[in-house]
């Protein structure tokens, strides 16, 4: 392998968000020498726009392997959080008390029942249950429901985490483990010369034995540089955050959760396009309205800020994990659920990358070949 012993970095990870940082951490804990390339302070940064759910229910409708992969990450999350706490002293407040997806009419109940039925009917789907609860049962877990609540779907594997603390813990951990962090290094080109990847940015070149593209929506234009394909469909999303409140909500809902700091997060929207302007207030209004219908006691809480982000979304919603045949040693990791899959990325995916081979049985279904297969039909 040309240049092996003199090479400063075993792996270059492109993208310093939750996915890149989790992969970098996973590699570093295996002793790999990692350089993490990131953009600057005003970068789009999908990692700031997440709802911090570690969510399992109905993930994988249309691709049952995704359900299996999601459950594996969920099961690994508690150990992952403990490991980060031991390494960094930062408690990311991972909790898995079970989560609810609220339904505010009989029509919503029926539609959800159909979704659950289709989901559980898939062959090879993971072995857990999401149950449809009527209002009476939901009330036992969530007091103070508004009159519009008809019921909810509940999954015991759903949880949440403090995603900003997770981000902070990952960056602290990778720094402690000697990962070289290079902000303001947007990648402009990737070449493979003599078995070594040369990654260019305005601030210079970086050389590594392997490269992992974990740059979110930007993967779409980076992927072809290493003979890969990553069709993305970025979406705009908004989240409302309230002032801090005494603890009152112990389960995460898909659209309302209370953080460990006491703030209440309300989400979330999924809007086509990436135009930063437009529709903000009406969307915030609908989100606020639904939240108050679920928990009338929220009505008088003050909104202190809103987040808006361009969310990472592969074209069909499922992760894309790939390795290049034309550029051996180049990998691609992108997904929508960077929080839920953080444990999986650090503990399950990073070892595959370190070993130089993605495990077909576990993640083969996420290769971008699936887009070609569809196109061919």
């Amino acid at each position, binding site marked *: 392998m040309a240049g092996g012993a003199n090479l400063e970095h075993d792996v270059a990870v492109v993208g310093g968000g939750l996915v890149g940082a989790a992969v970098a951490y996973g590699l570093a804990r295996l002793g790999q020498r990692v350089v993490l390339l990131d953009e600057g302070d005003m970068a789009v940064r999908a990692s700031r726009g997440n709802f911090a759910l570690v969510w399992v229910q109905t993930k994988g409708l249309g691709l049952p392997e995704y359900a299996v992969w999601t459950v594996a990450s969920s099961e690994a999350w508690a150990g992952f959080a403990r490991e980060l706490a031991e390494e960094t002293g930062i408690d990311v407040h991972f909790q898995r008390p079970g989560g609810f997806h609220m339904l505010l009419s009989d029509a919503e109940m029926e539609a959800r029942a159909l979704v659950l039925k289709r989901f559980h009917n898939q062959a090879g789907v993971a072995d857990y249950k999401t149950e449809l609860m009527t209002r009476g049962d939901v009330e036992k877990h969530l*007091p*103070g429901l508004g009159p519009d609540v008809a019921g909810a779907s509940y999954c015991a594997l759903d949880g949440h985490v403090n995603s900003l603390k997770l981000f902070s813990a990952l960056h602290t951990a990778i720094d402690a483990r000697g990962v070289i962090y290079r902000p303001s290094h947007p990648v402009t080109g990737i070449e493979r010369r003599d078995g070594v990847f040369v990654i260019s940015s305005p601030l210079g070149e970086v050389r590594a034995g392997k490269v992992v593209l974990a740059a979110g929506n930007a993967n779409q234009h980076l992927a072809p540089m290493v003979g890969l394909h990553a069709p993305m469909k970025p979406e705009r999303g908004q989240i409302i955050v309230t*002032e*801090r*409140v*005494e603890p*009152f909500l112990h389960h995460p809902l898909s659209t309302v959760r209370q953080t460990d700091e*006491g703030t209440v997060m309300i989400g979330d929207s999924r809007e086509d396009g990436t135009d930063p302007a437009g529709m903000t207030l009406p969307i915030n209004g609908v989100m606020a309205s639904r939240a108050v219908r679920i928990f009338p*006691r*929220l009505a*008088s*809480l*003050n909104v202190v800020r809103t987040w808006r982000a361009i969310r990472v979304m592969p074209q069909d919603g499922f992760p894309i994990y790939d390795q290049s045949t034309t550029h051996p040693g180049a990998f691609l990791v992108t997904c929508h659920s960077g929080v839920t899959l953080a444990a999986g990325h650090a503990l399950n995916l990073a070892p595959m990358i370190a070993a130089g081979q993605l495990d077909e049985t576990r993640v083969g279904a996420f290769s971008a070949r699936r887009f070609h297969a569809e196109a061919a039909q």
Partner: protein
Amino acid sequence: MLKRLSEALPAAVTIRVDGQSVKAAAGDTVAAALLAAGIGVFRKAPVGGGARAPYCMMGVCFDCLVTIDGVGNRQACLVSVREGMEITTGHGKRSVSA
């Protein structure tokens, strides 16, 4: 510690603060009325629990938060006193009752 100018005693308004009657002046903000009455601590910082009181008196510091007529986290420096207003102080995080 604050005191009122002797000429500055317009119509008195009575408000209640933490269960006690307090004399204020028409045109006072709640913050001014509380400070003039010798109430030096308005709230507890929600992170560390430390005592907080008005800093800017113009609505930008958010340290003058008190509960007014049952609504929590109101900026006392932006609300004018009214006869019979009920104010409670010393809150940290907001609480929402069922």
